[in-house]
């Protein structure tokens, strides 16, 4: 045990005075965390939609997209950041690209599974009523696929919220920045580590529930089906 650790021992894990004195700092970190999450998931969603459209047109691409997505998904976030920093420098770009890559596998798979789950009979009925192909996709297939798509969006968002903390290593990180600062201060400030970790979990839960609620609002028919 070194001197630094001895000093750290005196500081409480939960220090309400510190929290009260540093609310603006905590708030800023939380906002940055939310911004990084929303931008990364948004970018991931845009890329995933493009890839899905391509896969719908050229079916053979789907396997390839899943394979590449799976490899990217397995690559540790630490390694992904390390690849991108020499290219893009320290900053938000490398962080956002890294975070977005982890959403692609989940989102593409869920969008496709959702669309594939719409029965041929339903599509045929829509065509019979005079729907154009575009109307079938926008008015029938996508709405019916929404529950599975939303499930994917929830998993992707919760995953990204946890991963954002790692980007503290390249000067981003939102709540992760609190954690890293807490550990690098001499002596370490335990309350920063606890606040950063706990709030990250809280954010994940809040976003998960919010997306769950949004999904239910967007698909009112799923509720009436269950009660029937």
């Amino acid at each position: 045990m070194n001197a630094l650790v001895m000093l750290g021992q005196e500081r409480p894990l939960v220090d309400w005075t510190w929290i009260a004195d540093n609310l603006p700092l905590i708030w800023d970190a939380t906002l940055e965390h939310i911004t990084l999450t929303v931008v990364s998931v948004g970018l991931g969603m845009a890329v995933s939609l493009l890839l899905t459209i391509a896969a719908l047109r050229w079916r053979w691409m789907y396997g390839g997209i899943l394979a590449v997505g799976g490899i990217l998904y397995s690559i540790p976030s630490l390694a992904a950041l390390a690849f991108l920093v020499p290219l893009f420098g320290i900053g938000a770009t490398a962080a956002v690209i890294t975070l977005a890559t982890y959403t692609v596998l989940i989102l593409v798979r869920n969008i496709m599974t959702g669309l594939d789950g719409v029965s041929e009979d339903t599509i045929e009925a829509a065509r019979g009523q005079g729907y154009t192909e575009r109307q079938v996709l926008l008015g029938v297939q996508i709405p019916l696929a929404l529950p599975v798509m939303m499930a994917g969006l929830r998993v992707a968002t919760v995953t990204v919220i946890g991963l954002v903390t790692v980007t503290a290593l390249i000067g981003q990180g939102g709540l992760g920045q609190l954690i890293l600062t807490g550990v690098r201060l001499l002596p370490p400030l335990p309350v920063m580590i606890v606040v950063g970790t706990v709030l990250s979990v809280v954010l994940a839960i809040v976003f998960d529930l919010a997306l769950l609620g949004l999904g239910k609002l967007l698909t009112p028919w799923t509720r009436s089906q269950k009660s029937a």
Partner: protein
Amino acid sequence: MGDVLQQAVEFMGDPGRWSFTEPGGIPYRIVEHLWLTLAAMLVATILTLPPAVWLAHHHRAEALASSIVNIGRAIPSFGLIILFWLIASRNGISSNWALIAALVALAIPPIFTNAYTGVAEVDPALVESARGQGLTDRQLLFDVELPLGTEVILTGIRVAMVQVIATVGIGAIVFNGGGLGRFIIDGFAKGPAGYGEVVVGAVLLAVLVLVAEGLFSAAMRRFVPRGLQGRHVPDEIEAAVA
């Protein structure tokens, strides 16, 4: 980028870089990375499989099985590793054991949920017919449910392993060890002059994960009897990232 490659080549050309015994050696860090992973996976598997299989066999605590993986996903491994380090160092334990404990905590959710799903979601008709043929409870578990659940159970262990290998690297922030993460963290600390080291660490870490995952999958295909392969693994359960 050319500079970075040159740095990387210089970094790898360092005389101590290929040592198994020097802390600066790549082989030394690979061995460290592997033993930390192996230790955490062994402990996590031994702790998790028996209760998960028992609960699944009796169809108890179903809500726990589905929520534990979500909880695991919401906890940032970055924060968890540092919290474990903090708590351990306050209690005078600042060795790799604290890192292993954190890795175990991260490995438990995917192992638990997959093991539970693998056993609990065996076709009820098969379970019924096994009972009808007079199989005892124990026989049902060991001769029907576990064999049919093998692939899903092993998938959970594979997912946990990928997550653990990734997280060992994050441990380098606070622990002296950290396997290949050491090069990435130390390289970042040097700023642009360390980018060569960072890239070498990143390539090695990515290759280590992909090779480990590939070998695990190959072993599964080789050793799980073909008749037991190809059961559907729910998508959500595969999702674990570090």
